[in-house]
């Protein structure tokens, strides 16, 4: 027992002293979140409308300008149409020279065919503005909308992204950290030197695994903490549940790392193998983008990726406040993967 503790202390010390490892497991994932926090993926934003006003009257333009959903630019007709073709405008409204607030003029509206959602919304708003002119003139009775503000949780892209990034860094440090670490220990004869001591090989493995799981827990805590403090993460879940799911995922990816270090002779062999395994998951497991955009056939495979279970599980807990019972499917998926990957790791791992 004393040896186990000493081995654990030593491997933790070694990890802490390895600056690159700290950068990879803690700083880099947070830096990614920081970069992504500048990207606005949320909602439609606004509709770009170009207006070409040939008439001296500006009543219509004055009604349109305060509408927040529109981003209005005034310009010459040829210029605005050119911008429409470049995709900078969703619609271009041309007001004829003869336009009067009251009348039956025909206004021309050019629509960008590539932006059906924006043009549809823009068209409704413009038609509504024209109707407003008529109402103002005639004081007709009409139905009124009584508005009331309701605060929503208003989840942002960061809320989606951050749990995914936590899942990603658990995968990366498990697979790459262990695979590279052990191949180097093996290649440089360090493991061999340990084999001539009476130390039980399992004690060494246990020390390595527990160090890495401890690091993993720290990772989860730091990333959630940084998310709440710096990135306005709407964290409403239980950190304990996050760690439970994270640890189960950690077991899967550590096992993959051990298996890879067993079948590789050098760092050069580890890198491509580790990438072949992690890249598809990184792209298709819903770390960065929702998997709902994937075609149906892709779901057949990606639904069962361990990283999908891990990312989904962590995300439900973090932003939906899911309990461990709620994420039972994910826990089950990860448990099944743990058994499979542990089995492979035990079979493939070599000391020499």
């Amino acid at each position, binding site marked *: 027992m*004393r*040896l186990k503790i*000493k*081995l654990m202390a*030593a491997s933790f*010390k*070694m990890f802490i*002293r*390895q600056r690159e490892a700290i950068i990879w497991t803690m700083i880099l994932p947070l830096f990614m979140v920081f970069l992504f926090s500048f990207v606005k993926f949320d909602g439609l934003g606004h509709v770009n409308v170009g207006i070409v006003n040939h008439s001296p009257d500006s009543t219509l333009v004055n009604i349109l300008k305060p509408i927040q959903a529109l981003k209005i630019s005034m310009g010459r007709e040829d210029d605005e149409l050119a911008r429409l073709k470049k995709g900078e405008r969703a619609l271009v409204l041309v007001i004829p020279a003869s336009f009067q607030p009251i009348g039956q003029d025909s206004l021309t509206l050019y629509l960008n065919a590539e932006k059906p959602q924006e043009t549809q919304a823009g068209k409704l708003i413009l038609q509504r503005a024209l109707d407003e002119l008529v109402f103002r003139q005639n004081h007709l009775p009409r139905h009124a909308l009584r508005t009331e503000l309701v605060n929503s949780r208003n989840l942002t892209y960061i809320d989606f992204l951050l749990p995914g990034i936590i899942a990603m860094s658990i995968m990366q440090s498990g697979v790459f950290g262990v695979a590279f670490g052990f191949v180097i220990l093996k290649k*440089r*004869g*360090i493991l*061999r*030197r*340990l*084999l*001539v*001591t*009476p*130390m039980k090989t399992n004690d060494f493995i246990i020390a390595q695994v527990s160090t890495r799981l401890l690091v993993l827990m720290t990772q989860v805590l730091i990333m959630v903490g940084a998310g709440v403090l710096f990135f306005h993460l709407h964290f409403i879940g239980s950190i304990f549940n996050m760690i439970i799911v994270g640890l189960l995922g950690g077991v899967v990816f550590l096992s993959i790392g051990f298996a890879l270090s067993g079948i590789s002779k050098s760092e050069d062999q580890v890198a491509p193998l580790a990438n072949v395994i992690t890249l598809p998951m990184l792209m298709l497991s819903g770390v960065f983008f929702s998997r709902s955009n994937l075609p149906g056939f892709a779901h057949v495979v990606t639904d069962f990726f361990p990283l999908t279970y891990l990312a989904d599980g962590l995300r439900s807990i973090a932003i939906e406040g899911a309990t461990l019972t709620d994420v039972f499917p994910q826990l089950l998926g990860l448990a099944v993967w743990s058994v499979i990957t542990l089995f492979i790791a035990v079979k493939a791992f070599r000391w020499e």
Partner: protein
Amino acid sequence: MSYVLEVSALKKRYGDLVAVDGVSFNVTRGEVFGILGPNGAGKTTTLEMIETLRPIDSGRVLLDGLDVQQEPQKVKQLIGVQLQASSFFDKLSLTELLLLFGETYGRQVDALALLDEAELRDKAKSYVVQLSGGQKQRFSIAAALVNDPVVLFLDEPTTGLDPQARRHLWGVIKRIRSEGKTIVITTHYMEEAEELCDRVAIMDRGKIVADAPPQELIRQLLAKGFKKERVERLANLEDVFLDLTGHSLRED
């Protein structure tokens, strides 16, 4: 006479290659026993079978009366090993490494005393990567001494070292010898064997072709009527090199 190491008819085969072909020898307590031979003679393979690192195809090794194949764990407790290409964890200091290695034997060692033995006290807080070739080898010997082993195995400890570092290492080995430790050392430097060993076995192509004290082997050769093309040389190039660059120890 009690032997602390008894090797009999040891064999190891890799496919068609017979790496070790019926090797037998005995080592007495307190003796420095050298295994000499060209590269590929089977020295390292022999040593690794004795050290429990490699399965034995046939033959038997008794270490302090324990059968290496039957009781590898007990044998590991009794031996100290310096491997030919052994390295150590990167981010632990020499002191921390010695303490950790001590723990693997269930011992709480005096790391500084061990470092003194290898003349590395001033490097106590350094990492192994910061050591020179000679210092690394001396540290490797210190690490092999953490369990106060019954037999110390040194596999080509001075290969690749410059003359000063080699002489420094010899000094360390001689002191360990003077403390009465049994040492088994492999080398392909004849001079080293002559300097350090009480007895040598010469190995070639997996077999031991001679086994006797160095002076005895030389006497036997001369008795066969061997005459060396003799030029009276009172010094050789190594003497010149050491004269010019200094016998004294370098920060090696």
